[in-house]
């Protein structure tokens, strides 16, 4: 039994965790030898609580508790800078996606609630309309997040330039799209790739 001995508390580490993340992401997380290339190429480390290479190290150590509540996994913009340069061919964005899905599945305190909420609303909009409806999405996010007045000025400017179409676009095949959603959800319940 391996435990991390911080000053006053010690957190149990689960050596099985990296294998679970490896299966969920399809990436050989154990292969990482911490060369640091992903972190020094990542544009967003300044906003993250753990830089990518240290987050991967914590995955290897099995510090599930700390990894799933980290902000890093939600701030990753999947720009694939790390994946392109990783000497061990580890696709870090895929690992970040797997960790996002695990965090939601295990109902932990999510590292960045706003981003998680955005993704959920985005998919909900597409599920219903078949295409994105920016105005609707922004409206829903403001209501749900309570951040009513953010970006009002630039939002107005975009609207006046005709960049925010007021009406949504609906696709004819919404029926079979809902079937796609149902089948995907069924697969997920079978523990498809969670």
């Amino acid at each position, binding site marked *: 039994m391996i435990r991390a001995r911080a000053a006053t508390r010690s957190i149990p580490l689960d050596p099985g965790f990296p294998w679970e993340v490896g299966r969920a992401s399809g990436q050989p997380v154990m292969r990482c030898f911490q060369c640091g290339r992903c972190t020094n190429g990542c544009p967003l480390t300044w906003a993250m609580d753990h830089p990518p290479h240290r987050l991967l190290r914590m995955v290897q150590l099995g510090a599930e508790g700390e990894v799933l509540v980290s902000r890093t996994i939600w701030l990753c*913009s999947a720009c694939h*800078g790390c994946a392109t340069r990783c000497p061990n061919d580890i696709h870090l964005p895929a690992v970040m996606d797997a960790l996002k899905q695990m965090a939601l599945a295990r109902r932990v305190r999510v590292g960045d609630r706003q981003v998680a909420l955005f993704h959920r609303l985005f*998919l909900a909009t597409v599920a219903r309309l078949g295409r994105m409806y920016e105005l609707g999405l922004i409206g829903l996010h403001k209501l749900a997040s309570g951040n009513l007045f953010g970006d009002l000025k630039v939002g107005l400017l975009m609207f006046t330039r*005709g960049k925010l179409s007021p009406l949504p676009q609906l696709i004819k095949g919404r029926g079979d799209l809902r079937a796609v959603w149902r*089948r995907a959800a069924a697969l*997920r319940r079978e523990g498809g790739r969670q």
Partner: protein
Amino acid sequence: MKVAYFPGCSLHSTAREYDQSVRAVAPALGVQLITVEDWNCCGATSAHSLDPVLSLALPARNLARAQAAGHQVVVAPCAACFNRLKTALCQLEEGGEAAQTIQKVVGFRFHGGLQVKSLVQLFWEDVGVGAIRRRVCRPLEGLRVACYYGCLLVRPPEVAAFDDPEHPRAMDDLMAAIGAEPTSWAAATECCGASLSLVRGQVVERLVSTILAWAQRAGAEAVVTACPLCQSNLEMRRPAHIKMPIFYFTELMGLALGLPDVKRWMRAHLVDPAPVLSRFYPGVGARRGG
């Protein structure tokens, strides 16, 4: 040349001028665009963040419809849509369990023989720089531009499989073909923060200010991009003191090819392009208020 055209959600709203310029420039270069019938959103970042199966099923449904309509090449001007479609295509071609799942969830059989290209790729590989140069009637002599590829147009290499992920040159060649002067600069493939913009604006502001600072240091007058999300981020989240217009590469090509509607496209820009383009096209983009 006939291709299936996948506009993507942005081109119907925030990137309206990109869609218009594409629909004008393509035929001018002999490329007939046939929109994919009843196309659906490719899922972009949110799908692959939350659901691995959906992130492939959504783009795959579009491929299914293109295949049903008998197309060989599907073109997506938006880098994100191109990346998602190409990822789905790669999975389908790889076969195996993932491919079966996608076909089962979408409900179609993949026959193969389908290609997915970004618009830059199509112009650079199929139309060819020579053909473009021959059609230019108003070369944009001396226009110093910084070509901004962003990330999903060229990365990850095993999926995008287009140009060089670290030092891409396709757009630079297209700009040179229409007489402009592409400058080499450091942030050509740095990420602009993409979908974080709507939720974490300040994060994108910092990334955008770095990118535009590099463009200014390289002496560029304007930034040229091929991705609607990058264009809106670079314009919406730019620092006040940098007034550099952000063009879609098709807009400048349209201007150089002498196409009619250039004015209409330019009006949609948040940063007034007039100071930069007036020496090529008097009155373009001029209107009340900045």
